[in-house]
Every structure is written in structure tokens, then in C-alpha cells.
């Protein structure tokens, strides 16, 4: 597949690639799904008349009508539950939740119903719902709209959790998710919506269970996902100027984790830095670190390192918000430390 990075040049259409934004890619993915499969519909707060909190669904209400683009009351528990019910009833709902902080109101529906019904019904009923959740910080939305709680969901058996970090994944992960017979949660980092990138016009569905190496290198493995991928690629550029070849893995799937790709890379480079916008304690970074310890210990040349968000509610002031988040300089420093430099 074509490797996409967030820093692709703005070039319009070149050959069979198009330049687009992450937001447009999501929009096109939803539109394609609506066109392809009559069972697909979108619902969530302000997805219809307002066009979506992040303007992903703008124009879709006019094209597909209120049956398929449904504005919901401000009750995450109710409309996520309705989505689960629709999925059980044979539909293919796409449910949008404005931010991961609000998704906590729907945790009961997601964890106790969506994730368990296939198991508790002895395989009689599956729940093919797709839940899109915005997450992450950087837009000065303060401590109730900015967190990265992906690991809460990645903890739960019965769910699949993915985090498209590139325009291409934003465009092509949705259809794979809709085809999955079980609930899939898609985390969209809020700082990615405006990112532009180039896209193969003829790209196909992506395998959502596989991590991908966005940049090969031999000296240290940097593991990132979602909103931290761009910062991590920036850090890898800086490291290259210092003669350090960093390999950058984009996890893409947070549950299941593609442990094979992680372990193969770390076994080659012998060093790992995990970049995670979640808080360090109990983080996905902690889980990945434990996996590396369990299965690649004898290949390590340095302790596994983590770059995570400071353990504070995300601050409102820009300088404090930026200071709390993983930044390229910290990633560079952590990578250098694994090399004893």
C-alpha cells in the first residue's frame, strides 16, 4: 500500500491520487457506505442539520434525507443504545459521539451490551455497530472535551478499536469496520480533521487489524497511533539529522494490537519508545511495554520508554495544554536516551 504521511504536499490531483483532508476523507467514506448499503445510516448529536460537530457529515442530510442522517437528543446512552438495537435488528448503523469524554455516558451500552451480546447469546446475535468517537487535545477545549480514553475501550474483549492516523485510513477503514460482524469503535483525533494528505483514488478497504510501518529504520522503534503519529514522524526526521534511523509504527488497531509487527520491529532495533496521548498510568503504552517485556525481552538493548500526556486534566490555556501533551522534542529525547545519547 502507499505510505501516507500527514505532511504530504498540496498538489491537487496528481495522476491517480487526489489531495484531500482527513475530514473530507471521512465524509467520503460515510457517503460511499450510504450509497453502497441501504442498511447503513448515520446518527448522533448535530450530524444532520449542523453537519456534524467537526463538519464531517455536512451535506449528507440533503443527499440522503432524515431517515438515514439522524439528529439525536443529547443522550449518549440513548442513541448508542438505539444504534446497538438497530445493529441487532439487521441494520449497519454508524453512531457518532462528539468526544470521548461524552462517550462515558454510553459506556454501559458499549461495554455491557455491544461487547457482550454475541458472547451471552451463545453466538446467536452479533452487533455490527460502528461508533465514531472524536478524541484528543489541542483545540483548547479544556478538561471535559480533550481526553484520550482509547485504552478504556481497548481494554474490553468483544470490541474492536481502531485509530486512523492518515487520510488514507480515514477514507478506507470505515467500510472494513462496517463489514465486521462485531462492534468497532473508530477514534478520530480532533487535530487530524484539517490535515491534508494525498489519497489513492482507487484505494481499497484496509485491514483494520494490522499495524503499519510508516517509516523504516534500524536504531529505535517509535510506536504511535492517531494524533501522535505526525509528531512521531516529525521526531524521526529530527533524529535522522542526528544520524539515528528511527522506525515508526502506526498501530492503527488498538484492539486487537498487532503484536507481531511490534515485536518484529523491536527485535530488529532493540529499542522502543511508545508515544501515547493517554495518561501514562494504565495506558496503552503500558500494555505495549508489557508485551515487549514478555516477548522481546532478550532482544532489548534499553528499557522500553514511554512518552505520554502529563497526568493532569487537560488544561485550557494553550501553552499549558501543549506542555501537557507528548511533543516531538520529548520523543526525540526519549529515543536518544534508549541509545545512551
Amino acid at each position, binding site marked *: 500500500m502507499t505510505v501516507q504521511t500527514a505532511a504530504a504536499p498540496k498538489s491537487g490531483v496528481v495522476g491517480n491520487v487526489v489531495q484531500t483532508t482527513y475530514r473530507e476523507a471521512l465524509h467520503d467514506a460515510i457517503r460511499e457506505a450510504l450509497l453502497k448499503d441501504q442498511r447503513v445510516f448515520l446518527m448522533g448529536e448535530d450530524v444532520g442539520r449542523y453537519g456534524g460537530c467537526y463538519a464531517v457529515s455536512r451535506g449528507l442530510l440533503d443527499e440522503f434525507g432524515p431517515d438515514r442522517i439522524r439528529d439525536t437528543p443529547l443522550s449518549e446512552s440513548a442513541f448508542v443504545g438505539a444504534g446497538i438495537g438497530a445493529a441487532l435488528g439487521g441494520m449497519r448503523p454508524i453512531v457518532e459521539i462528539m468526544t470521548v469524554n461524552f462517550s462515558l455516558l454510553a459506556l454501559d451500552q458499549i461495554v455491557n451490551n455491544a461487547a457482550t451480546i454475541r458472547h451471552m447469546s451463545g453466538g446467536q446475535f452479533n452487533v455490527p455497530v460502528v461508533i465514531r468517537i472524536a478524541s484528543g487535545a489541542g483545540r483548547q477545549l479544556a478538561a471535559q472535551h480533550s481526553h484520550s480514553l482509547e485504552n478504556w475501550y481497548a481494554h474490553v474483549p468483544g470490541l474492536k478499536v481502531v485509530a486512523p492516523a492518515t487520510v488514507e485510513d480515514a477514507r478506507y477503514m470505515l467500510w472494513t469496520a462496517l463489514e465486521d460482524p462485531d462492534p468497532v469503535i473508530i477514534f478520530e483525533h480532533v487535530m487530524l480533521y484539517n490535515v491534508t494528505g494525498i489519497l489513492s483514488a482507487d484505494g481499497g478497504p484496509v485491514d483494520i487489524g494490522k499495524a503499519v510501518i510508516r517509516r523504516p529504520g534500524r536504531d529505535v522503534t517509535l510506536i504511535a497511533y492517531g494524533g501522535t503519529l505526525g509528531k512521531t514522524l516529525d521526531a524521526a526526521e529530527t533524529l535522522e539529522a542526528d544520524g539515528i534511523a528511527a522506525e515508526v509504527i502506526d498501530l492503527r488497531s488498538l484492539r486487537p494490537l498487532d503484536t507481531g509487527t511490534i515485536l518484529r520491529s523491536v527485535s530488529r532495533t*532493540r529499542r522502543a519508545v511508545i508515544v501515547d496521548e493517554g495518561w501514562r498510568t494504565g495506558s496503552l503504552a503500558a500494555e505495549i511495554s508489557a508485551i515487549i517485556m514478555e516477548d522481546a*525481552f*532478550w*532482544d*532489548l*538493548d*534499553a*528499557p522500553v520508554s514511554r512518552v505520554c500526556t502529563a497526568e493532569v486534566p487537560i488544561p485550557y490555556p494553550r501553552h499549558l495544554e501543549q506542555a501537557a501533551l507528548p511533543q516531538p522534542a520529548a520523543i526525540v529525547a526519549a529515543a536518544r*536516551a*534508549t*541509545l*545512551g545519547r
Partner: protein
Amino acid sequence: MGTFSMPSLGADMEAGTLVEWLKHPGDRVERGDIVAVVETQKGAIEVEVFEAGVIDRLLVEPGTTVPVGTPMALVRGPGEEAIEAPAPELVSAEAAAAPAPSVHPAPPPSAPAAEAPGRPRASPAARRFARERGLDLVGMTGTGPGGAVVSADIERSAASPAPAPHPTRGLDLAEMRRAIAAAMARSKREIPHYYLSTTIDLTRAHAYLERINAERQPADRLLLPVLQLKAVALALRRMPEFNGFHTADGFQPGTGIHVGTAIAIRGGGLATPAIHDTDRLSLDALMAHLRDLVARTRVGRLRSSELSDATITVTSLGDRGVESVFGVIYPPQVAIVGFGKPVERPWVAEGRVVIRLLTTTTLAADHRVSDGHKGGLFLAEIDRHLQEPEKL
């Protein structure tokens, strides 16, 4: 039945490689006899036995690297019967490299070792690589986080010419540099040094040497360092807090005055072999010892006791033209005396400005054991002895 074990030939030594046995089963040995040659970071060392008897059995094959304290031979004391039990297998290079413990019990802590040998800091990958390649991590220099040995260090080490299974005698200057680095880093890390400096008038000592040497052949002449060594040794009789070792139990005074003398090696490197009972040797005997030591140090043939027994060190960079040297204490010793280059200078004596041959004499000492006041008295005592050279 006594045991002859791999000796500790310095605070930083963790293991040694047996080069050859100079005694064999059935040979009678006396205390002090050289029974084996051991390759260490400081070169090939002739190792002495500390009890009299008959060599009963050799437990280690030449070419084998074993940790300090590992039994290497059994020595049958007078009247003891030879062991009837089947001979234990020799520890071979292969067996020693294997991770499984050999047939011998864990080595007992050896008395002269200043501290238990530490595990080298090494990454998991480095440990696996070393094991796969049969390399020893001990003494390897690490380039990883915190100076840890990492897999690349093992690969470099494996790519460089492999150490011969039967090391030849001689000096490995790179190894020696690592040993010096380890000892000096430990010294600066652990020992709170204090430094004193004084000027000592060598005019009388020099005149004494001129007088004595005038009638001697060059080979028999005495040199100034001999007077300095003897003066330090005699001063230590009165100032025992500078003669001995600092260990976990605090200061242990030396059982004799064994002055180590710093000898530079061409191409880089340094050894500080001891002259045993320096205070009891005549100047001629001391001179003979010094000549012998310098010659043997430079070809890398020192004896184990010479490397481990020094109770203080004297360093003299005077022949390199420097006026003063502030030494770094060789752990676990507690002091080092430095002599600078003797120079003629105007000096005030008995109210007149006169020309005198002067040397800057320094003391670096361990503040855990002594204080500057005592250090000053020690330097004054050295000075006093150098003013009476005929009594040295």
C-alpha cells in the same frame, strides 16, 4: 587440604584467565612459590601460593577464565593423605563458559577481595549475544544507556580478534586502560579526597646521593626515588592512618608497610606494584627491587602479591618535568604521595637567600580515614626523613 584460589589482584578484578601451571601434582611448594601465571587486565601475573605443601590436584585448565575466589588447585599439607575420591573434572574453558554451574561449589568470597564482584550492567540482548558467542561480559565497555553493555558492543567485541584460548603472556594495554578506568572512576566516586602540598628541600639528599654514587658503577648507583620511597615508608611508621585500606568495615591498617610505586608503561598504561616491607629494606636493597620492578612491569610480569598488597602509593612525575602531581588514590588504599620535579630555586634559609634544590611534595588522602592536620604532620615527617638521608 588447602585450596589455591584465583586471587584478587586489585579491587576492580572480577575474574582471571589461567595461562599456565608452573607446578604440577606431586610438586612440593613453599609459601611464596610461584605456581601459576594468570592473565588479568594488568597483564600476565605470576601467582604465589600462601601455604606450604604438595600440589595434590589441579582444578582448572589453562585457558579457562574463572571468577575471583574460584578454587584452582588443592594443596596437601604436611602429613595429609592424598584424596582417594575420584578426581573432580578440570574446569575447562568450555565448562566455564556454560551457564550451568560447574561441578565445583560456588566460589567462597576471597579474603583479599575488597568487594564482591558486581554484575556488569548489560542489556538483555547483550547478555543473550554474549552467551551465544561464548563471550564474557566482565570488563567489557558499554556504550548503551548508563554505560550498559549493549548487543552492538558484543558484536564489536566478537568482530575484533577473538582472545586466544590460551592467552600469551604480555600486556594488553586496552585491558589495562579499562582496569585503570574502573579503579580511578571508583576512587573519584567513592573516596572523599583531600589534597595537601608542601615544598621539601632536597639539597642534602642530593648531596648525599652524589657522595655515595661518586664511587659506584652506574648500575649500582642510587637514585632519588629510592630515598623518597624510604622516607615515606619510615614516616608511615609514625602515621599508620595513611597505611592500609578502607573497607566496608572502615579503616584496616596495613599489616606491613608495602609502598606501591607508580610505574608508567610505554604505549600507555600504569601499574603500581608494591615493594614489600619498604621500611625495613636498605637503600641498596630498595634500589635493586625498584630496578627489578620497573623491568618486570614493562614486560608485564608482576607477581600477584605485588599487585594486591600495596598499602599506599607513591607517584613521581618529576622525570616528566612537572612540578607537582596530585594523585588519585588507588582503592582501597587511603593515600597517595606525589613528588614533583626537583628544581633549583632561591630559598630563604637562616635569614639568607640561597640556592636550594626543591621539590613540591603532595598528599592526596581519604578524608574518611584522616584529616588535613594529620596529613600535614605526615608530609612534615617525610620532609624530616629526607633532611637526614644518611639515616634512611
